[in-house]
Structures are given as structure tokens and as C-alpha cells.
């Protein structure tokens, strides 16, 4: 029953996506070219990667506003570890991702141990992590990475951008965890009724802790890809990424109140946002206009979800 109503929502979203793609293709002949599509895949990889753990976060009824700041912090630390501390670049990459995981773990600890609402906790760490990033960077940027490093963000494997492969693999893993495993079940149960989950012997705190840590780790990975793509490290990287991520997740049908959502939905939501951004830009719509359209689509999608849940609920 629940699965069927999810699919129904995703079917609507998929239909919406096809309509949007069709309309945009009418506007510009550059839109439906292989080069453009692959390039868009490259551009949405970072937001897409972070949207995967964010789906878990929002299904538990939480939110993580700090992911953009974690991205910035990890990007800076990647440069600092390599350039200033002289560590080998692969080690610096791993350490940067580990720092992301620690930042996420701290979010999780604040939320589970001290019972701070996720919105407040991650609003605080959004400022905290960004402040750290800026303090560490002192407004200096790091450049001059070796060529092999750019494979991650600028290279291709079998003709497809490297980071798109990474996104696809992670999306499949995330979908499997959420859909098939005990951990996925715990995630839904915590979001739908935390008390009942606890009373059923589900380790609610551990579930949340792992999810927020995962969000941090993936934000760290996104930071490494981001740096590789733009060839430089700056402390303001990833500013506002959290909003793009949340938009994609919510557009994909994940309920902001928790308990419902799928990875497939998130992926469709992500593609829809990216297609709108790109297509409208190619059609000559200014950036401001694009934001307005994305806002409208988001509201429409939420209204549609509400209609569905009203029909399907007992």
C-alpha cells in the first residue's frame, strides 16, 4: 500500500520531468545534445551526492542545514592538508572526508544526546563550520593540484564524467540500504513514530547518529569532487548548497514531517531541478527567473503530494 502510493507519486513526478524536458527541448536545440546532458550530470553530482544522505535525514523527520558548510570546511582542509602540511594528496583527500564524517557525527551527537531539534542544531553548525573554514583559509585559495587529481571532477570514464559514475553507484547503494535493509526500516520507523520505534527495540539514537555522520562523510566526498572540478580551494565553496539539496529531496516526494520518501524520488527531483536550471538558461531566461520557476515547481509538487496522501491515508 505504502510502496504503491510512493510509486504513484514518483510516476507523476516522472511524467512532470518528461513534460519539462520536452518543453525545454523545444526552446533550444542545444538542450538535448549528449555533450550538454553529460555536462549537466557533472554539474549536479555534488548536490546529488549530498541529496542521498539528506533523504535519510528528512525521512527520520530531521534536517541538516550544515552540509554546505561541511563541504566548504572539507574543501579548505583538503588544501591545507596537502599544500600547507605537505601530506600526500591521497591522504589529504581521505582526511578531508574523515573530517566531514566527524562534523556530521558532531551534528548527530548534539541532536541525540542533548535533544536539540535538528533545525537548530544544524543551523548552529552551519555557522560554526563555515566560520572555521573561513578562519582556516584566511581568504587565501589553494591552487596547483596535480593533473591526476582532476580526473575526479573533470575527467571521464567510458565517455561519462567520473563524478556521474560515483553518483550513480552511491545512489544504487543508498536505494538498496533504504529499501532493503533493517537500517532502512529503522529509518522509516524512526521518522513515522519515534516513540513506537524505541518501544519496539529499535536503537533510535544510533540510527540518527549514523545518518548524520553519513551526511557529513558524503559532504566531504562532494567537497573533494568540487575542488577537483573547479581546480581551486576557497572557503566560500558550497554556500547555499543545502537549499538545492533539500529542494531536490522534497521535490522527490520525501515528506518533511518524516516517515516517507525514496531515493528514486530524490534522483528524479534532482534531475528535474537541474534540467530546469539548464534548460531555462539555454532558453535565455535570466537566473532570477529560473529561481522563480523552481520555487513554483516545488510548491506544485508539494501540493500534489498532499493531495495524494489525503487520498491514500486512513
Amino acid at each position: 500500500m505504502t510502496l504503491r502510493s510512493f510509486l504513484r507519486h514518483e510516476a507523476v513526478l516522472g511524467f512532470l520531468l518528461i513534460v519539462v524536458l520536452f518543453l525545454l527541448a523545444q526552446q533550444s536545440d542545444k538542450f538535448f545534445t549528449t555533450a550538454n546532458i553529460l555536462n549537466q550530470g557533472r554539474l549536479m553530482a555534488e548536490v546529488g551526492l549530498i541529496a542521498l544522505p539528506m533523504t535519510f535525514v528528512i525521512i527520520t523527520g530531521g534536517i541538516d542545514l550544515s552540509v554546505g558548510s561541511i563541504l566548504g570546511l572539507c574543501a579548505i582542509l583538503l588544501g591545507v592538508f596537502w599544500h600547507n602540511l605537505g601530506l600526500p594528496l591521497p591522504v589529504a583527500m581521505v582526511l578531508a572526508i574523515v573530517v566531514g564524517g566527524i562534523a556530521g557525527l558532531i551534528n548527530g551527537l548534539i541532536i541525540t544526546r542533548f535533544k536539540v531539534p535538528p533545525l537548530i542544531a544544524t543551523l548552529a553548525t552551519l555557522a560554526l563550520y563555515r566560520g572555521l573554514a573561513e578562519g582556516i583559509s584566511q581568504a587565501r585559495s589553494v591552487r596547483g593540484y596535480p593533473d591526476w587529481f582532476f580526473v575526479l571532477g573533470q575527467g571521464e570514464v567510458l565517455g561519462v564524467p567520473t563524478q556521474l559514475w560515483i553518483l550513480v553507484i552511491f545512489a544504487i547503494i543508498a536505494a538498496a540500504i533504504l529499501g532493503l535493509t533493517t537500517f532502512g526500516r529503522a529509518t522509516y520507523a524512526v521518522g513515522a513514530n519515534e516513540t513506537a520505534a524505541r518501544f519496539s527495540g529499535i536503537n533510535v539514537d544510533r540510527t540518527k547518529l549514523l545518518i548524520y555522520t553519513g551526511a557529513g562523510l558524503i559532504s566531504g566526498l562532494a567537497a573533494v569532487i568540487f575542488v577537483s572540478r573547479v581546480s581551486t580551494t576557497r572557503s566560500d565553496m558550497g554556500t547555499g548548497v543545502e537549499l538545492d539539496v533539500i529542494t531536490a529531496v522534497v521535490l522527490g516526494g520525501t515528506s518533511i514531517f518524516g516517515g516517507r520518501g525514496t531515493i528514486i524520488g530524490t534522483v528524479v527531483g534532482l534531475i528535474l531541478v537541474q534540467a530546469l536550471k539548464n534548460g531555462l538558461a539555454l532558453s535565455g531566461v535570466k537566473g532570477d527567473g529560473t529561481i522563480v520557476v523552481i520555487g513554483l515547481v516545488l510548491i506544485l509538487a508539494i501540493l500534489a503530494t498532499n493531495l495524494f496522501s489525503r487520498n491514500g491515508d486512513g
Partner: protein
Amino acid sequence: MTTTLATEDASATPLVQLRNISKTFGGIKVLKNVDFDVRRGEVHALLGENGAGKSTLIKILSGFHHPDEGGELTVNGAPVAFSAPRDARNAGIATVYQELLLFPDMTVAENIFIGHAPRTGMALDWNEMRRRARALLDDLDSPDLDVDARVGGLSVANRQRVEIAKALSQDARLLIMDEPTASLADADVRRLLDVVRRLRARGVAIIYISHRMPEIFALADRVTVLRDGALIGTRPIGEVDDAALVSMMVGRSIDQLFPKVTVPIGAPVLELRNVSFKDEVQDISLVLRAGEILGIAGLVGSGRTELALTIFGITPATSGEILLNGEPVTIRSPRQARDIGIAYVPEDRGLQGLVKAQTIRENVSMALLSRISRASIVNRALESSMARDAIARFGIRARGPEQRAGQLSGGNQQKVVLAKWVATNPKVLIMDEPTRGIDVGAKSEIHALMCKLAGEGLAVIMISSELPEVLGMSDRILVMNGGRMVKTFDRSEATPDVVGAAMTHAGAAHGRAEQAGSAP
């Protein structure tokens, strides 16, 4: 039915009258063609077991629910239809609920006049508001209650007076009181009864809901009994006695109602030695044997549920020892409790027991996901067949395993929770208010299941507020009060009188003093 009542000096038209009122929720008729009326200056007691339809009836009267088509509600002889609680208030009907609905950070006067404060032009007239609040409270014989006090700092009894004053400030002609004495100490109960009499003398009509028989005989002019949503009868208080009311409420003798099967009692399974949790559970020692149903009786707040939560690891014991099959165990979380074979069917089904938004299948497997999965991957086929088995074994009336739990009736929801815990194959099953708010048919099904499980060697602890249920189902009865065990009875020696007395009297002052103390 009301025509038989000629003894009262009532005026011709009742103040409020319900004719042929029914109410259906999700296909279940919880109120069936009920006639009911209240007269000016009358205290009309409303009686019935949990789930009899009392609260639905008063929610219809106070505008929260709309009755089904075909019924009629009149005020002063004129038909009315309330579309919102505000309409009922405007018609002069006010309700004082069990859980008081006041703003703790506002003063007494502000709470009384919230929404209809006296004004001078645009501004609130604070002096007038305080003066009128004072007058109302003096009227309620409460000259000691300061109108400028913060409501959050008041005792339960005083907050209740504020609530009554608030109702009167809106010119209530009918006051509905839902178990107003449930959490009051004796002295406060007497004072409340005086207030009710005073209101009656002023011509206010009162619907009084209580489980305490002495209060009903002390106060009421007439009494109406509901059972399973149907009207059983309305009688002048002089024509009934205690026993008559109970048999109207229960409708059958206790032996018929509870299908108790005696099974051989086996070896001790669970043993508690001086177990305490803070001051909520104090020094509990007991032995529970296989096949035994141990009933725990006590008033709300007596520590019954707190004891269950301690055994189940939600609030782990702060001192004492717990033994399972003779081995000492530590239980720090529900997860640990579950893993060693303790199951808990909680008091609040909707909040603690079920994930209503999920399917029966997902609910039934929730407590044993790790056991039906390999390498963390849940075995969906096994899970579905488990859910189908549960539906068959527990007689859950549902379309199938994929139906959402929230769409089931209360009794079937409870069976899902029970199925979830029985699936974990526990040694000890704790059931907290196992039949609260479910209809009589489902109730006896749950009771039969309980006996069957005990017959299979499960050790059962049953906590219940319904004395007949405790007496009817238990092999042994433990009475709690103020967090302590005050008495135990064997099935043979347990009568309503002695158990009821142990619940309310012995140590009662202790428990109540604690409640009054924790009120602010």
C-alpha cells in the same frame, strides 16, 4: 425512556436534549441512537466503562464531533447544529476536561477572560478584568485564589477552579465535567463537590462524569448509563444503588465476561528484588511464574506503568536486581529487554505501540527485523508470510498484510501490537491497559488470546485500570500505590471490595500528597 422520570421538579423543556444521536468513526458505530437530556439546576451523572461512548457523547455536545444524520440536538427546545466548539460555547455549553486546557504562563485573570476580555475602546480593561475574575472566584468559594497568580504555579485543584470560573465567565448554562476528581486529594474533592452544588443551586445544569460511586450518590439527581455506545437507561438517583449501576454498566456477570482458563503454573521466570526507579517505583519485589497472569491494579499515577517501563528498560532501574530464569540480568534499554525475552504491549497504542502510517507487515516485523534478515537484507517473503500468519492467528480483521495499521479499528490495532511482540517469542509479556478503548467483542478476544499465551507457558503481567478485568483475568493481583506494592491477593481472595480498598485507601494519602506536590 426519559418519560418515566417524574420525581424531579424539573421545568417543562430540558435545557439540552439529544434525540436518536449516533456517531460512526471509520465504519464503526461508537454511539447508537442515544437519547439524553439535561435540565436546569440538575446534576446528571454519566456512567459507563471505557469505550462506552461517554467521551464521544460529550464531544458531540461541545461541538467537536458532528453526530450522524438522523439525530437531533436541541437547546431550550430549539434545534441546533454545532459546526465548531465555538458554536457550543455560544450556546452556553462549557466543558472542563480531565487534562486542563489553560495557559500556564498567564495569570488567573487572563486565563479566565482569554478571548473575551473586557475592553475600553481598543485596550484591555485590566482593572475590570481583575475585578470580574475576583467576583467569579469568590462565587466559587475560592477567596484564597489570587487573580494575579501564574496559572502554571497552581495546584491541580486550583487550576480546575480557574477552568470552572472561565466557563462561568462565558455564561455557561451547561457545564460538562469529565472526571473532575480523578487527580484530586480528598479535601479538594469535598470542596469541588460544594462548588458543584453551589452551581446547581444557581440553576446551572451539570453533566458529571466519574467512576467514583460515592460522589455520584452524593451529587447526582439523575444518572445515565451507556454501554458499547448504546443507552442502557436513565434513572433518578433514588431508584438505583451501587450494584444496580454496576450491572447496568457491565451488563453481565464477570464470569461470563472473562474467559479465564486455569493453566498449570510453572517455574519462576522473572524475579524482581527491591527494584526501584527514582521515587516513581519503590522497592518492588515479586516473582512471576510461567503460565501465570499477574494483575497489577492501582490508580493512575500509582506506579503501575512506571514499573513496567522499568522492567522493559525505558526507565532502567536505579537500584535493585532483576533475574530472568534465575540469572541476574541488566536491562538498560528496550532493545536489551527484547533480546532477553521481555515484551511490552504499551499503554498508549497510537503513540508507543504502533507506527500507524506503516503497514501491518512492517509493524508486525518491527521488533525482530534482525532475526528475519541476512546480511542486513530483510527477507520480504518471510516477513509477508509472518504477517499473514499473525492475521490468521490473532484474528486481525484487515484486507491483508499491506493494509496500513492506522486504518484498523482499535481492537485490531491492539492485536497487531500483540502479534508484533508474540512474534519475538518472549518469555515475559507485559500488557499495559490491554483493552483500553476497544469494544467489548475485541476485548474478550484479547482476553482469550492472553489466556492462550499463558497456557503456552508465557508469564504475563497485566496492568489495568478496570477492576473487573484485573479480577477476572489474574491468577494473582498486586496492588500498587504511590510507587509501592501495598498488597497482593490470590485469585480466590480477591473481591472488588478488598482490592478497591487497597487501591484507594492504604497509603492513599501518600500518593496524593506526592501528586499535589508535583503539580506546579
